[in-house]
């Protein structure tokens, strides 16, 4: 059941992010990028599997075989590596979002508008 809910949430997040990126307002575009980035992070967490024991000794981690391994058995553990990956991705996403917001402000200062149809690249 968790899988179905997470899959739906992921789909909605990606759809929402894509919708916002296609807006005219620059702030919404940055929001959209940020949401897509977070959706990718949530997706990454689910890639470790959702059904296993927590990989901690004394809490079910005594049988250290990840559930993704074939024939892992019933008391396998959730893969903890993806959490390390996601931490890295979150930190990078934090930096890039901060930069994108500053860039939005500078764009407003230079163009006096946040409407993308009025901002020309040329």
């Amino acid at each position, binding site marked *: 059941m968790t899988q179905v809910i997470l899959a739906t949430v992921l789909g909605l997040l990606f759809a929402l992010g894509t919708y916002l990126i296609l807006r005219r307002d620059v702030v919404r575009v940055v929001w959209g*990028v940020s949401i897509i980035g977070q959706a*990718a992070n949530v997706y990454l967490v689910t890639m470790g599997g959702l059904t296993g024991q927590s990989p901690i000794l004394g809490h079910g981690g005594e049988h250290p075989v990840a559930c993704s391994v074939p024939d892992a058995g019933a008391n396998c553990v959730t893969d903890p590596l993806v959490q390390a990956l996601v931490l890295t991705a979150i930190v990078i996403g934090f930096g890039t979002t901060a930069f994108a917001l500053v860039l939005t402000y500078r764009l407003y200062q230079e163009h006096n508008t946040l409407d993308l149809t009025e901002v020309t690249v040329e």
Partner: protein
Amino acid sequence: MSADLAVSTTHVVVAPMLAALVTAVLTLGTRRYDRLQRVLSLLGIGAYGVGVIVLTTRVLSGGTLTYQLSAWPAPFGITLVADALAVFMLALAALTTVAILIFSVAYVDEEGQRVSYHPLFHFMLLGVSGSFLTGDIFNLFVWFEVMLMPSYVFVVFYSGPRQTAAALQYTVLNLVGSALMLVAIGGIYATTGTLNMADITRRLADPAAFGIDPAPVLGLSAILLLVFALKAGIVPFQFWVPPAYRAAPAPISAFLAGVTKKVGVYAIVRLYFTVFAAGVVDGGLGLPGLSGESFLAFFGPVLFLMALASMLVGGVGAVSRDNLDDVFAYSSIGQVGFIVLPLAVVATIGDHSFGAAATDLQVLGVIAALVYSLNHAVAKSLLFMVSGTVFDAADTIELDRLGGLTTRYPVLSGSFFVGSLALVGIPPLSGFFGKLLVFDTGGQALAAGAPGAGLALAGALVGAIFTIAYLSRAWTKGFWGDVTPAVERGEQSTVLVGVVAALALVVVAIGVGFDPVYSFAEAAAEAALDSEGYVDAVDPEVVAHE
């Protein structure tokens, strides 16, 4: 960790990255002392060059070197792999960036250099080197981000209306690209159970033994291709290229076109020819119009269409632009087409099964792509720096306002001429061999009866004619003719012209002394196609199943 897990690690592998990282931090700390900062920055790029030379000599004489971070054995830790392909790309980066940094010191105003230029430059170089050396697919994502973050700042460096607009487009596109890359990497991890590139190769080659299904990896690697194509500026992901290159300072346009673009090319060669080439979908791909079971049988036609479209879009775009930077930016799109085309041709001609020796034609195709990359890196950075020098002297790079540069600045114009001829492919310059190898790959594929080889040759011919057209147009409009007032007023900078002329000599030298360059590229191509050798060098532990 138990003692039987012997880990072989060679510290020289991290030398270039260490040089770039230390310099970036030092130049950040010496912002108040701008002379010291500039000296440190130049010393740092020198150390980077020495590091690359030492690493290259070690790899070419002793074979692939690996560096296991914190002595964790592969595939559990992050592995850095310096094989002939990686050091070829590093050598290309070092050669170009040394010239670019010397140019920058004379070109970028003092205020700009003091604020952020030098740390960003070295962080970008760090990201580029890390991408070339890493043997871990998630680590590749991290190095891409390290490389991209400074490039966002560089695109908005002058911070005017045009720069902010171009940077927003560039940043948003690449952030979406990064999210997609994360999705693809996460999926590959979930499917194959590993992030180590050598381990992925090994598992894809023998999916039954590891209990994995290779079919989803094909789709996931297709998402990855999209990200690399975005980085390399291949059609249909090329539209950010002209605004970004025009907005960035001239030496940075040279860096982005010469080196950063090649990271995308490198990633395509490394992942699709070394790693994913081992993948086979039993019973065929099941896609309309595609036969064959290998992953390459899918990526070949896809790359083929992208390469042809790039050559046309780049050529048509460059012919119609009235600004030197725009001409060179569109030209970059077209030239990347020339780099990808031989890769596409050899990917199409047949399955390259794991463990089997690569055929001569496959090696030739990858050599063609590498030699063309080297030529484009040197010649295109040369041209962007010519454009910067012209702007420095005449305050404009609009072709309408330029004229008579040959009379006023003969050395600068001569360097532009050499750079253009190299892109066109006139002997004895570096570009001649690039073009020759591309056409040779197409010709041999045609002789071998490969589908589409004739089309590849025709496309390359049209692309080459476009190259001649837009470069001679820039030459006649901007460099020949009467001296315009803008050109008359200006004064050229000796350092800038010196760097540009030195690069022009490098273009000639690569062409005249092509033999060692060819052997180097051949070693790199063989390393790229030797999936088994790559796996052996990294030597991932066998993970036993219970």
